[in-house]
């Protein structure tokens, strides 16, 4: 018995959310009185023993030419093999775009209860009960598994990590031949961008910024903070910013430590995707903007005046700290 965790890597480097998934799996396994098997798929240049610092007891590294790129069917088949050959209770994975692609395939392959959008540790493990976000941040629902096995997909940047010191044994599985029914043609990464669901700080702009030519100040602020950039829906609909930056009920849902909203009114559909942020700062020229009701800190005023001043003040702060 054990808990399997998928540790996603991108071009050989572990994603930060993978450590969070290992840590979540370790805490869940502890509740169940069992161990953690971390599964690494494809070439990985990072030192695999780092997974021990988040609680992995065993590391299985499945690697061969059929596993060079992410593929939902072949990666799911690896995880199904890891569960079946170790009689594991279930799988933990991070709710990245790739995690979301394979979670449902695992559920069917293992005839397991899939619970996505998980934002806290299980309330109980027999039966498995766990709270998940639903209704686009407007509610939580506690789910109970009705199957023997489970697949838990956790919200990136949600629960955080607990560092421990476990020395894990690492086993290379070279011979696994994975089936596939789709093929990668190309990948196009946004240059320099910090992927949104994982970004710890997000700076976001709305229609109040008047036009795409004014995004330099958003990017300057983001760069001082090491933040990702986001926008409201109309901003992406007008192509001022790429679709991948659209946050909200019909865009990406995020829960960074800090969300700075500039020139965004705070419509209910926008809030639905960002209200789980731990701290929210709103900069808006209208003191009646609904966003202030959902904010922790607010500044009323002209963004074109405030944002450069804030960037300068943060630069000074960073220089001293």
């Amino acid at each position: 018995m054990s808990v399997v965790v998928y540790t996603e890597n991108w071009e050989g480097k572990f994603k930060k959310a993978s450590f969070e998934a290992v840590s979540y799996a370790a805490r869940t396994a502890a509740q169940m009185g069992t161990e953690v098997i971390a599964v690494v798929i494809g070439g990985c240049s990072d030192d695999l023993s780092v997974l021990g610092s988040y609680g992995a007891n065993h590391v299985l590294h499945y690697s061969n030419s059929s596993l060079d790129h992410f593929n939902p069917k072949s990666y799911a088949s690896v995880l199904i093999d890891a569960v079946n050959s170790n009689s594991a209770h279930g799988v933990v994975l991070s709710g990245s775009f790739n995690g979301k692609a394979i979670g449902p395939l695992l559920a069917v392959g293992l005839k397991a209860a899939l619970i996505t959008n998980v934002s806290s540790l299980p309330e109980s493990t027999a039966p498995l009960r766990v709270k998940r976000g639903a209704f686009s941040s407007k509610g939580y629902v506690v789910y109970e598994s009705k199957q023997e096995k489970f697949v838990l997909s956790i919200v990136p940047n949600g629960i955080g990590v607990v560092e421990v010191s476990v020395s894990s044994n690492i086993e290379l599985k070279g011979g696994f031949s994975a089936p596939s029914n789709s093929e990668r043609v190309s990948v196009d990464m946004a240059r320099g961008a910090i992927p949104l669901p994982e970004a710890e700080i997000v700076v976001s702009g709305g229609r109040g910024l008047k036009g795409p030519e004014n995004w330099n100040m958003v990017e300057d602020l983001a760069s001082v903070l090491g933040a990702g950039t986001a926008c409201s829906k109309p901003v992406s609909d007008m192509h001022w910013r790429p679709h991948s930056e659209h946050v909200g009920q019909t865009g990406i849902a995020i829960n960074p430590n800090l969300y700075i909203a500039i020139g965004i009114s705070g419509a209910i559909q926008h809030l639905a995707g960002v209200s789980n942020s731990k701290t929210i700062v709103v900069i808006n020229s209208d003191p009646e903007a609904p966003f202030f009701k959902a904010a922790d800190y607010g500044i009323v005023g002209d963004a074109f005046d405030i944002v450069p001043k804030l960037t300068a003040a943060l630069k000074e702060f960073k220089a001293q700290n």
Partner: protein
Amino acid sequence: MKILVCISHVPDTTSKIQFTADGKSLDSTGIQFVINPYDEFALTRALWFKEKLGGSVTVVNVGKANTEPTLRKALAIGADDAIRIDAEPTDGYAVAEELHSLISLEKYDLVLMGRESIDYNGTQVPGMVSALLDWPFINACVGMEVENGIATCIREIDGGKETVKASLPLVVAGQKGLVEEKDLRIPNMRGIMTARTKPLKVVPSVSTIVATQAVQYEKPAGKQACKMVSSDNVKALVDLLHNEAKAI
């Protein structure tokens, strides 16, 4: 091309979400239900495929009779016919089994769905359907073309996009980008009139599985009042973010 578009029936995005006093279910009093916004992109894309390549567009919902107005709206937007699988859709796995059974019988070439439902945010039904059928699956799809039985799809990934090829039949879970917001079809008067006479077939439920059960619903904790900082003193905000919120 024979296309199926799966339609989830969800509270309108402006809805105030409330739960019943015992916390056992959604309180749907006063809530207006609509086509899941992601499914609207799938539906318009399906209609474009039909117009370009010929074929038909069927819409399906797994739900009770109260979802029929949502299916009629999809017919008014342009679908040829509708199917309602008569089951209370309380579990994503069960919904996927219902859809799987229909798709195996009807032999569609393409199944288009939304990336996720905006109510339960499960992000599960499309992938489960693909796995039950053993068809290729593309999630978070933001662009798609079909030529000679091969689909070329662009899917969103963390920090970028990936282009993927797969043969039909396949299951695609789409979002904005599949078509643009401005391209979304809305019902016109003629559409609404003809929708009344288009076929809406009700088929019985077949699934027996229950994978999960929702046992308790809760509202998120309320926010403290917002602290206002003067626009002349942005340094105070930096201090608060560092010392109080510990966010920087």
